């Protein structure tokens, strides 16, 4: 069974110590140290291939790390551990490609894990699902199938689906990168609202406006390393690392 950790930082949602990961002989994460407090909103940015997605996907072990320690919601995670499914229920994830289940209605997408994993009765699960669909402003689509919705609507359903599990922590892996420009805002609005409600969030995104408005801290990654982290006010005004300066220069022009 998973070992309860008595970490010194009791209010940490995520703690990484010297985290390393390889894809074959290629090292994607180099000794990453990161601590995310409960209620904190983190935006992870950096050039493609810098390891941002991998970092976030380690947190719910869709990718496993090979070295270092990773503690999520007070439990240390490691390859091959038992009880992972239970721990994942407390960590919501939103994917770039939405990954809604196309054979289920919007409502059933939201209730599936409540009924099958949390073992709630169906009517109670549906109540929770409708509540969260209202939160993402899409309750009228509950009985449609995902392919009948626009990309922005699908991503909002995906957010609602994750929220139904009442996660302690939400991970966003480039949630707006697959969207048409006019649909980005509706998704970011939902995410902003979520942040205001006090959700602990770790977002990989290139939406610098969102980062500036919502993030408590920006993490900048390059070649599998965190090379700069700062509050948005500082990060956007005068980034220290030349690579971050270059990156921002390209983003803002």
């Amino acid at each position, binding site marked *: 069974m998973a070992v309860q950790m008595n970490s010194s930082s009791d209010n940490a949602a995520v703690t990484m110590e010297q985290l390393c990961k390889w894809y074959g002989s290629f090292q994607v994460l180099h000794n990453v140290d990161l601590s995310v407090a409960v209620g904190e909103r983190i935006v992870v940015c950096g050039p493609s291939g810098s390891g941002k997605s991998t970092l976030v996907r380690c947190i719910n072990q869709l990718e496993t790390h090979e070295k270092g320690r990773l503690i999520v919601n007070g439990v240390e995670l490691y390859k091959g551990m038992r009880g992972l499914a239970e721990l*994942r229920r407390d960590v919501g994830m939103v994917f770039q490609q939405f990954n809604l289940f196309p054979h289920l209605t919007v409502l059933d997408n939201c209730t599936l894990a409540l009924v099958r994993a949390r073992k709630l009765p169906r009517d109670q699960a549906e109540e929770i699902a409708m509540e969260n669909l209202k939160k993402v402003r899409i309750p009228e689509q509950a009985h449609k199938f995902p392919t009948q919705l626009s990309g922005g609507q699908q991503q909002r359903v995906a957010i609602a689906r994750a929220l139904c599990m009442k996660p302690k922590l939400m991970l966003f892996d480039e949630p707006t990168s697959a969207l048409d420009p006019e649909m980005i805002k509706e998704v970011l609005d939902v995410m902003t609202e979520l942040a205001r409600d006090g959700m602990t969030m770790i977002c990989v995104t290139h939406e610098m406006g969102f980062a500036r408005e919502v993030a408590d801290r920006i993490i900048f990654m390059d070649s599998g390393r965190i090379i700069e982290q700062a509050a948005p006010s500082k990060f956007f005004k005068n980034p220290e690392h030349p690579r971050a300066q270059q990156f921002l220069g390209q983003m803002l022009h």
Partner: protein
Amino acid sequence: MSFFAILRSIYEGFGITAAVATLGLFFAIPFAVIAGVLQHFATGPLRWIVTAIIEFWRSSSVIVLLYAFYYTLPAFGIFLSGITVGAMVLGFNIGGYGSQSVRAALQSLNKGQREAGLALGLSRFDVLRLIELPQAITAMFPTFINQAIQLIKGTTLVSLIALTDMTFRAKQISELGYNPVGIYSALALSYLILCYPVTIFGRKVERRFATRKAR
């Protein structure tokens, strides 16, 4: 003998043909799903074993297997009815093909589907059962109908182990008098009458899958 009389006489074998085909599906479908899923997930020795079993049923001649099981099993003290042997051999043979459709359909699913299920905290088995298999089976349904039709047509072979199916009846009639055109066109028509409704059923179900997505 009139064409209609021939048809009626052939129809006396319908029960056996239908029984072998239906029972055959009960062998074919579970075998296809279980073997396909196992081959998709298994690694190492288990995978070799599963592959060997699939290949045995898929790559052997059905006639040889029919004879082998019908005539040699009693030597080992195992007595199975002709219908059971016929259904099992045909079912596992078609199931062997079917397993490859199941495996291919599982492999072609976007891995994001699995990841989304796991991220929600579902067990690997629930992800397979509730997310992957329903989509895989929808995707392979046209192939499945094809294979069901192959199975029905394959039942002609059980006439070789002395089951009085439609083909066996036709051969009996053909010994009464020389009328190959009448008898075998009646037999061909009989199988068409049996198989075509399956095709129609397949199209109906496919259309239902389609409207679910594009309504």
